[in-house]
């Protein structure tokens, strides 16, 4: 019990640290302007990792192999859905007739 309580406490400390860092990066000039979204994404992914390891307490133990595989599959699907949507929609947007031209054509 003591070991798992330690994990929770360490996780809380890490999560607080990373959340604070996210707010700091978003609201200050510490990072170069165009790099801020990248910085926020990195901090968010780091915090998700902290939650998985310290709160959900995933490990590399044999009892946990299926959980890790399922997680890997989930990450694959989420990446395909989000990345694919953004990619396709950006291209569709770029290939569309601009709204102003469309309005003039319909007159």
């Amino acid at each position, binding site marked *: 019990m003591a070991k798992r309580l330690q994990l*929770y406490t360490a996780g*809380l400390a890490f999560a607080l640290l990373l959340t604070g860092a996210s707010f700091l990066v978003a609201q200050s000039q510490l990072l170069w302007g165009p790099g801020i979204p990248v910085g926020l994404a990195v*901090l968010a992914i780091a915090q998700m990792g902290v939650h998985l390891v310290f709160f*959900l307490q995933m*490990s590399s*133990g044999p*009892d946990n192999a299926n*959980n890790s595989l399922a997680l890997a599959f989930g990450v694959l699907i989420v990446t395909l859905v989000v990345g694919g949507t953004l990619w396709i*929609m950006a291209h569709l947007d770029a290939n569309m007739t601009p709204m102003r031209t469309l309005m003039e054509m319909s007159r």
Partner: protein
Amino acid sequence: MTATLTNARGSARAADASQVADPLTGGPATVEITVAYGFWIFLLSDIVMFSAVFAAYAVLSSRTAGGPSGQSLFDLRNVGIETLSLLFSSFTCGVAVLAAENRRMGTFYAGMALTFTLGAVFLGMEISEFARMIGAGAGPSRSAFLSAFFSLIGLHGAHITIGLLWLCFLVAQTLVKGPKPFVLRRLGCFSLFWHALDIVWVALLSLVYLMGAR
């Protein structure tokens, strides 16, 4: 186990007579492990659903149709308090379930009460934020950006609402039945659910609020 995905063999539980470990393969897995695995699959499918709404938001977030953008709508101080409530409630939830597994029922009930309170604080702030935005003419019908925003944040809020109801149900069940193995398994699933919602919130915080408020 119950509270977490791993570490299943340590906690007290009644061994199921049908599950005698095979000395060669180590299987079959205990019911604690299979239940957590099944629930983990459900959670991942839930996260896949979130990712679809999330993708819609990412595409539509700049389509404000001349209406207000995130920069004028988001109040980062409120969002910060929401984030802290959810994070601490995730922590107290984990500690409470751990306490129940070790038969420290006083700590369990106190932890669950804290978890509920912090979750309710989060939900209350989110609802008042929605009310404030709708009152200011920035409701979900105003623009594609706001439709996507209300869908995404509302979906997370609906999960939190269900989680709070589930928490009450589980505490009542623990009061009536005591920390029996099947009650502990359910508590463990709830703990996984609550932690997963916190993971989803991390994504929402960073990509919706922190980037949107800039």
